[in-house]
């Protein structure tokens, strides 16, 4: 298991390297000069100094290595400084955004809690809804509940999030007026009222994100329970006189959760890219919206860093899914 983990990690390094290089050199092709909106009255030597200050003086491949160093060494050092009050990273050039001339990671650190709240809540909600639905539709296969469930899950992953988002705004905000359309990120939760307001503004984005994930997960859960229901151990459990609830909720559930747990890990990146769209609809100022605004403002360091964070997320969740499967299922051995 340990050797397998190490091997996977070893393979993750070149993968991430190539992805970083691909994004970096793609962005090299971009037009867009960070000095474009500096007034022409600024003398050219000052302009050159400003370019140097943004780390733009060097040729592309050197800047790429510099970016790698900044991402993997200087930024973690800054985090250490921030936590322990040390000064390891003092004087080192951080990754600077072209938009607001401040370190990229400061902006990301500001934005990431909003994204994590919405994404985390919707994932939790999706799991809590999907697993019981999956179990029940498999247990009563071809029943009315199962048929309806299949149809709804089909709709759930066919309707793209940008339409389901617009649709729930229409119903719950425009017609019913229950929830606000716009997510107010300046809201400070300090008493019951503001807590309720927070809950009300989170319901719609969470609903949209959870709908897709729920439909995918419940399909998996249903298939997995169906596989297990025909197994011999289920018959044995019934034959020895266990109550049906115990057979299903203890014996079958535990075994059929195995593949679903890995799917849950695998879907983490998907829900984050779903968040890019929902944040745009509900005006949540999380990292997805940050990416879109950075793209529109030609802020390439920000785009590069955010895309790379998404890539890391994908690689890590794939790794976690594979390892979890090996840990949970003793029949799987990777060596």
């Amino acid at each position, binding site marked *: 298991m340990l050797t397998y983990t190490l091997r996977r990690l070893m393979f993750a390094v070149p993968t991430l390297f190539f992805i970083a290089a691909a994004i970096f050199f793609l962005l090299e092709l971009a037009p867009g000069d960070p000095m474009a909106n500096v007034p022409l009255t600024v003398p050219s030597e000052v302009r050159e100094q400003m370019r140097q200050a943004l780390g733009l003086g060097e040729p592309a491949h050197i800047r790429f290595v510099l970016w790698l160093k900044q991402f993997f060494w200087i930024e973690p050092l800054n985090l250490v400084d921030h936590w322990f009050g040390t000064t390891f990273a003092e004087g080192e050039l951080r990754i600077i955004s072209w938009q607001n001339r401040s370190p990229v990671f400061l902006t990301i650190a500001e934005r990431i809690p909003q994204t994590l709240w919405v994404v985390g809540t919707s994932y939790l909600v999706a799991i809590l809804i999907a697993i019981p639905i999956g179990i029940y539709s498999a247990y009563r296969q071809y029943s009315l509940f199962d048929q309806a469930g299949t149809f709804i899950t*089909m709709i759930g992953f066919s309707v793209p999030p940008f339409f389901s988002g617009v649709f729930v705004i229409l119903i719950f905000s*425009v017609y019913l007026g229950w929830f606000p359309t716009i997510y107010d990120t300046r809201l400070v939760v300090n008493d019951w009222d503001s807590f309720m307001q927070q809950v009300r503004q989170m319901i719609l984005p969470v609903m949209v994100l959870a709908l897709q994930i729920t439909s995918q997960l419940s399909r998996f859960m249903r298939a997995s329970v169906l596989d297990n229901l025909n197994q011999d151990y289920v018959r044995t459990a019934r034959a020895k006189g266990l109550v049906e609830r115990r057979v299903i909720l203890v014996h079958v559930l535990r075994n059929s959760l195995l593949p679903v747990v890995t799917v849950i890990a695998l879907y983490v990146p998907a829900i984050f890219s779903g968040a890019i*769209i929902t944040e745009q609809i509900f005006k949540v100022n999380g990292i997805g919206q940050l*990416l879109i605004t950075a793209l529109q403002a030609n802020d390439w360091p920000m785009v590069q860093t955010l895309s790379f964070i998404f890539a890391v997320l*994908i690689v890590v969740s794939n790794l976690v899914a594979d390892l979890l499967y090996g840990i949970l299922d003793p029949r799987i051995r990777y060596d």
Partner: protein
Amino acid sequence: MTDPVVSSGNDPQTVTASHQMGPEAVAVPAARSQWRDVWDQFRTHKGALIGAFVFLGICLFVAIGPWFWPLDPTETNMRARNEGMSWAHPMGTDRLGRDTFARVMAGGRISMAVGLVAMLLSLFLGTLIGVLAGYFKRLDGPLMRLTDMFLALPILPLLLVLVVLFREPLSAAFGIETGIFVLMVTAIGITSWMQTARIVRGDVLALKEREFILAARSIGTPPRRIITRHMLPNVLSPIMVSATLGIATAIITESTLSFLGLGFPPDFPTWGRLLFDAVSFLQSYPMRAVWPGLMISLVVLSINYVGDGLRDALDPRIRGR
């Protein structure tokens, strides 16, 4: 598993072949083509059948609809701005008085075309890489590492970057509409071939061990012909399933990009773009957002059902039942 020829003998078209075979010939069922079997199985899946009809209906609607509809999608009419549903404008008009019905049809043409062409490109790439990796052992390692790398790419951010970067140069080179079309199709195609490649590689690896491939090789068939004559027809079913689902993914991706304001320019309506434009007026004219969204969802839903049905119909283990 019974012999497929015998097992399909319950159909009414059993004919005798005695006039060709001489006196000792017995009644054998007419040879049924494989596609006939597939269709029969497909027909039993109600959702898939309805999905196929809806999908074809929408295709016809966007393909020949504009010929019968007198209003032009880009023609503005300041006297008829922001109108509701009426016989003259079944889906109303927008803030410039353009007819939404005509725009939905025109948008559908672009969206469907992007979906189809992007799917073909991704299918071509996926099949090519899958077959090469499965058939030639030397290429397997590098190509599969490449596939893994592409699978780890953050697709949506990357697509957004591609569109932002190449929109201007390609529009300048091919003209606005063709340029963006080429860009969309290429960007979607090269970021969505990986699943097909993996499936095809797996199937080719399994096929390679079969006797008929050994036989073909032993009579000196060159690899090119083994692939085209023996491999490809046998991996057709997974390719067809991923083709159907590929259209849906491509349409969703194109609409997502347009919805984020990074797709076709406003003069060339696509479903995603229409939805994006309508969102600003959601409070006052909600139906304008519903129509394009409904079209996207209907197309994707019907395609998903067709894909589901095809998967069952093309699987011989299920088809026998």
